């Protein structure tokens, strides 16, 4: 579904990604784990077209997308929940969700999706007229995921959804990620520092170190990998 080939991405003169290659199959959950500053967020931003790669290519369903503008990439069905959630603080919860469906025109289906999400996160329904900025961190994360789902993505890019959340909330969020993947058949590309959790929900995983992919395997294999255990699982 998504194929990244030999990607080099730079911030000015600083190279953040070195020859990154990875692929995501339809219906999968894959995860990208790595330390702070490894280049995880950069990888997602390159895919979304916010920080376009200088070299290499990105194919989505067989077509190159690495030269497309971000809005075009969204319209193909790739949505991202960025690190730090990025809720529009002065838009209400309902308006934030509405922004997620910015490129859609099917009003009826949008209303149905909204209902589905409100059922999924009842707290959002309760708060729908409040400014997004007033929500708690966990609520904002639910809102951010819901907003991305409002676009009806084929591929959902999630950047550290567990960051700053209490374990209970984290578990809840991960349950929902799995649920979305299963019920809606949404492919998921999950970036996490909480490698333990990520590898437990994922099918496959990549390990990123200083902008290089150093490991790639099935999730359970990575969980069992000694190096991974030492570096990322705190064992």
């Amino acid at each position, binding site marked *: 579904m998504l194929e990244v080939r030999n990607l080099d991405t730079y911030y000015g003169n600083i190279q953040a990604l070195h020859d990154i290659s990875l692929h995501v199959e339809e219906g999968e959950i894959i995860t990208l784990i790595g330390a702070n500053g490894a280049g995880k967020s950069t990888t997602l931003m390159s895919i*979304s077209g*916010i920080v376009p790669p200088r070299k290499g290519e990105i194919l989505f369903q067989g077509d190159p997308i690495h030269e497309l503008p*971000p*809005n075009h990439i969204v319209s193909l069905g790739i*949505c*991202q929940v960025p690190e730090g959630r990025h809720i*529009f603080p002065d838009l209400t919860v309902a308006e934030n969700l*509405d922004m997620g469906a*910015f490129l859609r025109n099917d009003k009826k289906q949008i209303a149905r999706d909204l209902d589905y999400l409100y059922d999924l996160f009842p707290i959002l329904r309760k708060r729908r007229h409040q400014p997004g900025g007033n929500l708690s961190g966990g609520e904002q994360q639910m809102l951010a995921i819901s907003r991305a789902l409002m676009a009806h993505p084929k591929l959902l890019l999630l950047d550290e959804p567990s960051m*700053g959340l209490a374990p209970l909330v984290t578990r809840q969020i991960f349950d929902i990620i799995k649920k979305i993947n299963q019920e809606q058949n949404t492919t998921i590309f999950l970036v996490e520092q909480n490698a333990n959790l990520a590898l437990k929900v994922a099918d496959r995983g990549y390990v990123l170190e200083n902008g290089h992919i150093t490991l790639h395997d099935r999730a359970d294999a990575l969980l069992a990998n000694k190096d991974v255990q030492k570096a990322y699982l705190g064992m």
Partner: protein
Amino acid sequence: MVPGIVAFTGKFFPHSFTLLRNVADIMDFFEPDYFIELLFSGLTKGAIYALIALGYTMVYGIIGLINFAHGEIYMIGAFTALIVSTVLSIYGFPLLAIFILAAVAAVVWASAYGYTIERLAYRPLRNAPRLSPLISAIGMSIFLQNYVLLAQTSDFQPFPALVPDFAFMEPVAHIVGSTDLVILVVSVIVMILLTVMIKFTRTGKAMRATAQDKKMALLVGINVDNVISITFITGSALAAIGGLLIASHVGQINFYIGFIAGIKAFTAAVLGGIGSIPGAVLGSFILGLTESFATGYVSSDYEDVFAFSLLVLILIFRPAGLLGKSTIEKV
């Protein structure tokens, strides 16, 4: 004790008489009729500032840039209206038709300028240090002034009264003129339309989203470049309407009007909280009314002193302006 009480009442009563006299004095001083006249002068001024201030605040809200060339857009709108109305009156069009066509032409032409300025002078500097687009904006302002100076000379040119004297306004003409009324009404309508657009339309929501978080706006699929262009076009259109109305109010224009009006409107935008649309409107009316009452009750010599003291005072207590948001982000 007793002398004390006598002294007390003796002190108290004359004091209350003075107080009463003071109230009468104050009424005398304010002169209700005169007060109302000044009120309307201030409102007209405020409406004029608001039409220009909105453009400053919208652009600032979206890309954090003080568009110094905005005053020049207003000036170009006024010149477009002048040229079009002059040509149309030669062909004997009725006044209403001239007014409408001149307004349309001014809006279209000024918007084209606003759009082009953004494309040429600001977009290439989108990721440059903050100072670069600011300098580019000042350069644009100087360029446009001189361009119109060369094309139109520095002489003031008469601007036709596109708003006629309405017969029904005659009884109150000594307080509110017909152009004053039209300026007030049009600016109120424009502000309502703008509010509706920002609040409820898809474009308006995209504008708000872009203003609040540009990166996220990109990630939900908003074409941010288009939104920025639309913002410049909208702001320019408002300035052009302002240009037409204000020029027919004062009856003359030259290349420099944008600079002077621009400074005042910018002050109003900052006063209200730059980046905030209701703030720009509020700031404009406060500025207009302050100037009017300061002139009326104190002296027009100090009109600007009052206006800028007010600005400084408000910024001391509310650094982000009256309705401005201090930029603290929740993480």
